[in-house]
């Protein structure tokens, strides 16, 4: 494996929804070419955390951030950073597959077109490459003009991954990507995440501990907005330092 480089880093990160504090003083590093899993019980702030990384929470009314998120050492909240550029660099796959009501091809081409790419051959090339990367090409290559809603849930989610890959991000955030799809499709996506880390930095939020254990290199355990423990996945799951972590991963609460 490549040597460890910090790609995304949270420093003293606090997050508020109006008066409610959703994240409390989070320090966490997501390394390049590694998969970092965020686990924890419902309402612990997992999704809030991952959505601060590409500033998707900007659009939530009353949301406020304190502290820093660094991407390659530069604060994503610095006035120099264009949030549109940030989101191109840090892609996101949502909990519920959200294909657009367009053709399969147009879904993947969407990010390219809004970024001004007009060359048809180039677009077609990138669409094919992205669908290949998302392990979907063979299933859809003969039906690229069909509406994306015609795909199964698992295929839709891989389509959303392909769509995110098309704009050539550096990191990809997965917000519980398998919670709405069946186990076989889940296995495919987990497989895919393993392959994606050779090129990208991957962060995945999951409520499924087995999934975190299977796919991730590092795991962060959050509870009620606090980062309880962060470390190598193997250590977290075999020798957790914190009592709460141990109770959670052994299934004593959830």
């Amino acid at each position: 494996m490549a040597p460890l480089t910090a790609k995304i880093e949270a420093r003293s990160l606090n997050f508020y929804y109006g008066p409610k504090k959703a994240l409390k003083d989070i320090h966490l590093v997501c390394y390049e070419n590694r998969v970092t899993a965020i686990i924890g019980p419902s309402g612990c702030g997992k999704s809030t955390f991952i959505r601060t990384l590409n500033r998707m929470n900007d659009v939530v009314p009353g949301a406020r951030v304190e502290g820093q998120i660094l991407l390659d050492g530069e604060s994503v909240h610095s006035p120099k950073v264009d949030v549109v550029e940030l989101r191109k660099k840090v892609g996101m796959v949502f909990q519920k597959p959200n294909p657009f009501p367009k053709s399969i091809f147009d879904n993947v081409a969407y990010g390219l077109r809004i970024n001004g790419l007009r060359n048809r051959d180039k677009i077609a090339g990138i669409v094919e490459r992205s669908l290949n990367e998302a392990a979907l090409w063979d299933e859809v290559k003969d039906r690229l003009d069909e509406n994306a809603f015609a795909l199964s849930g698992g295929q839709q989610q891989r389509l959303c991954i392909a769509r995110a890959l098309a704009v050539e991000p550096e990191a990809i955030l997965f917000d519980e990507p398998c919670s709405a799809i069946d186990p076989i499709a889940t296995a495919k996506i987990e497989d895919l995440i393993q392959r994606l880390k050779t090129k990208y930095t991957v962060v995945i939020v999951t409520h499924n501990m087995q999934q975190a254990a299977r796919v991730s290199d590092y795991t962060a355990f959050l509870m009620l907005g606090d980062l309880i423990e962060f470390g190598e996945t193997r250590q977290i799951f075999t020798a957790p330092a914190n009592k709460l972590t141990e109770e959670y991963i052994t299934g004593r609460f959830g």
Partner: protein
Amino acid sequence: MRLKQAAKKKIVQVAGFILLRVCLYLVLAVLLLFLYDIGKKGGGAISWEFLSQAPRRGMTEGGIFPAIYGTFLVTLVTAVLAIPLGMFAAIYLNEYAKQTRLTRLIRLSIRNLSGVPSIVYGLFGVILFVNILKLGTSILSAGLTLGLMTLPWTITASEEALKTIPNSYREGALALGATKWQAIRTNVLPYALPGMLTGTVLGLARAAGETAPIMFTGAAFALPILPKSLGDQFMALPYHLYIMATQHHDIARVRPLAYGTALVLIVLVLGMNMAAVILRYRLRRKRR
């Protein structure tokens, strides 16, 4: 005991069902009776001459073409004002404005405006467009007045249409590096447009049938020639009907013509509503 209760439940269920059905039939019956009456009494007046000629001999003969033409022009002005302004206002309200007490108040005011009697719009139009802006009694003044009256409907319908678009379309686009406007333009508006247009055309159809807002702002009793510009006065179907039915010196004699006018007006409004439905259907199908 339990059986009895089940039977009672079933009776209530069936009775409720029948009640609802009867209500629907009642409404339908009134509508059909109304259409039948107007169709029967007005159908005889309809001819090519009636549709293509101007009224003659103090409106006792001839047709209603100037009124059809005037209604067409004034509705066009209404559309030009109400469609873009209403849609953009709705986009702002739903997509950009922060949901504060102020925006809630604005939204409530807009809803209330759609309930303001049309005569109030008419008088307001006289003051604003005819007197203050010096547009005179003209197609323009009347069309703008109708446009103002239609705006609350357009805004409300457009906003409702925008609300039906799932947030995941917006977020999905933003997450790919779209600007807010790009996300709205490419991933929200195309899907909201059928609904927005339907609501808008329904509003226009209502405006086309209004009398009160145009009678002081531009509609004329009778004109010897067709309007040549938007600054001229015009004849309009609803106003013409109003005159034929209540203000004419020989009401009994022109009654068939009045019914004919009513029939044309109704067919026009129904036609616009049908067009809205067809438009929505085709746009939706194209998206599939």
